C-alpha cells in the first residue's frame, strides 16, 4: 500500500485528502465525501484516515459515504475500500446518492462486499436514519 499521500487534519474529527473529506460526528458516524476519481494511493490514505478517526472515536463506528460527487474508483481502490469496511470496529455502512452514477458505484461496492450491513439509499437523511436504527438491517 502506498503511504505517500498525506492526510491533513482540519479539526479534531476532520481530515482532508486532496479534495476528499472525512469527518467524525457526535454519533460516532464517519462521513466520507469523495470528490472526483479516487486512485489507489488516495484510497489507501482514506483508509488510514478512517482508522485514525476510529481511534479518535474510541470505539465502534458506522460509516456514511456520499457518492453524489464521486468519480470512478479504480479496481484497486474498491478492493481497499471493501477490505476497510470489513474491519470489526465498523458496524454499518450506508452509501447514498441522488443520480444513477452513484447507484452504479454503490452496486459495485456492495456486490463485492461480504459485509451484510451495507446499503445504498437516495438521500443523506435516509442513510442517517438507517444507520441510527438499533437493529442491523440486511441489504
Amino acid at each position: 500500500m502506498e503511504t505517500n499521500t498525506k492526510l491533513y487534519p482540519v479539526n479534531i474529527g476532520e481530515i482532508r485528502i486532496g479534495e476528499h473529506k472525512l469527518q467524525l460526528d457526535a454519533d460516532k458516524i464517519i462521513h466520507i465525501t469523495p470528490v472526483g476519481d479516487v486512485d489507489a494511493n488516495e484510497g489507501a490514505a482514506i483508509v488510514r484516515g478512517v482508522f485514525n478517526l476510529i481511534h479518535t472515536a474510541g470505539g465502534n463506528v458506522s460509516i456514511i459515504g456520499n457518492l453524489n460527487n464521486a468519480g470512478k474508483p479504480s479496481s484497486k481502490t474498491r478492493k481497499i475500500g471493501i477490505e476497510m469496511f470489513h474491519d470489526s470496529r465498523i458496524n454499518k455502512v450506508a452509501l447514498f446518492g441522488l443520480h444513477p452514477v452513484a447507484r452504479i458505484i454503490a452496486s459495485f461496492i456492495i456486490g463485492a462486499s461480504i459485509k451484510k450491513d451495507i446499503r445504498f439509499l437516495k438521500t443523506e437523511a435516509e442513510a442517517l436514519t438507517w444507520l441510527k436504527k438499533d437493529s442491523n438491517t440486511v441489504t
Partner: protein
Amino acid sequence: MKSEKERIIEMINVLKETARGNYDIQLESSYQEDDLSQLSDVINKVIHGLKNQTVRLDYVDQRINQILETIQRVANGDYSASCNLSIENDIFDALAFGVNMMKDDIKSGIEEIKCKNKRLMQSNKEYKTLHDEYKSQNKKLLLAKEKAEESDRLKSAFLSNMSHEIRTPMNGIIGFSKLLKNPKLNGNKRQKYIDIIEKAGHRMLNTINEIINISKIESGLVDISITEVNINKKIEEMYQFFKSETDKKAIHLSCNNKLPAQAVIIKSDEDKISAILTNLIKNAIKFTNQGEIIIGCISKEQHLEFSVKDTGIGIPINRQKAIFNRFEQGDIEDKLAFQGSGLGLTISKAYVEILGGTIWLESLVGKGSIFYFTVPIKRS
C-alpha cells in the same frame, strides 16, 4: 390577409414537410383570433415537440452507440477503451460508469492471471531445470555405482588370481618337498623334483615382488637411480637371458637394434629399463606359441623408442587400454589360462611414466602385438 383556403393549404404544406422529417419549419403566427389560428398554434407546438423528441432520440442513440463501441473494443481485448461521461449524471452516465468499472475489473483480473501464468511458467522452468539436474545426478550415481561394482568384481578376481598365484607354487613346493623325503627316490626323479621346487619358488618370489612393487608405486615410494646405461649392452643381455626360454618354445628371438654410436649410452635408471623390457619380453613369450619375438630400439629426437614385437595371440581393440590397469589380463574370458598376477603391464606403465616416457601398443587378434615405450634421452 390570407383567405381561409390559403391558410389551410399552408398548414397542409407544413404538415407534409414535417412528415418528411423537416422539424425546422413553423407556421406563421396570425393576428386573427379564430379556430384556424388555434389550429396553427397547436401544429407549431406539435412540430416543436417532435423536434425535441428527435433530438432526444439522437442523444440516446449516440450514447448507446458509444457505449456499445466501448464494449466491442473491450471484447476484442482493447482495455484502453473507455465510455465517455457527461456532466448530466443521467442513466447513460450510470451505464457508462458501470461499463468502465467492469472493464477495469476485467483488465485487473486478466493482468493477475497473466502474472500468475508467468510465475507458473517460471516455476515450471525451474522445476524442469531441477528435474534435469536430478536426472543427470542419477545418471552419474548409476555410473559410479556400476564402476564401483566393476571395481569390486575386478578386485575379487584379482584376489582370487593372487591367491592362485601364491598357493599353486606353494603347494608345489610343499608337495614335492614331501616327495623328496622318500628315501627310495632315484637320482633323476630327485633332480626333477628339485627343479620343480626351484621353479615354483621363483614363480612365487616373482609374484611377491610384483605385489611389493605395485604397493610401492601406489604409495609413491619408488626410487629412481640415474646412472649411465649402455643400451646396446642391455638389449644384448635381454636377448641372452631369454634365448633359452624361447628356444624351448621354438620361437625365434632376435634384436633389431638401430642405434647410432652416439645414442648408445644414456643417463637413466637401468633397473627400471630392465624391468620394463623383462616384463614385455616375458609377456611376449607367454602369449606366443609359434613364430618370432623381436626386441627393437631406435633413436628419435629427444627419446629412445623401444619395441617388443611378437606373433602371439594378439589383444582385442576393446581391451587394449584396459590391460594397463591392475588386475586385468588381455583376454579376461579365460583368466586362468595364463599364469601371472596381471600386474606386469601396470608396473611397466608406472615405471615408463616415472622415467618421463610413454607406453602404447599395436595389436591384431591372431596376428600378434608390438609394445612400444619411450625413454627420454639424457646424454652422458
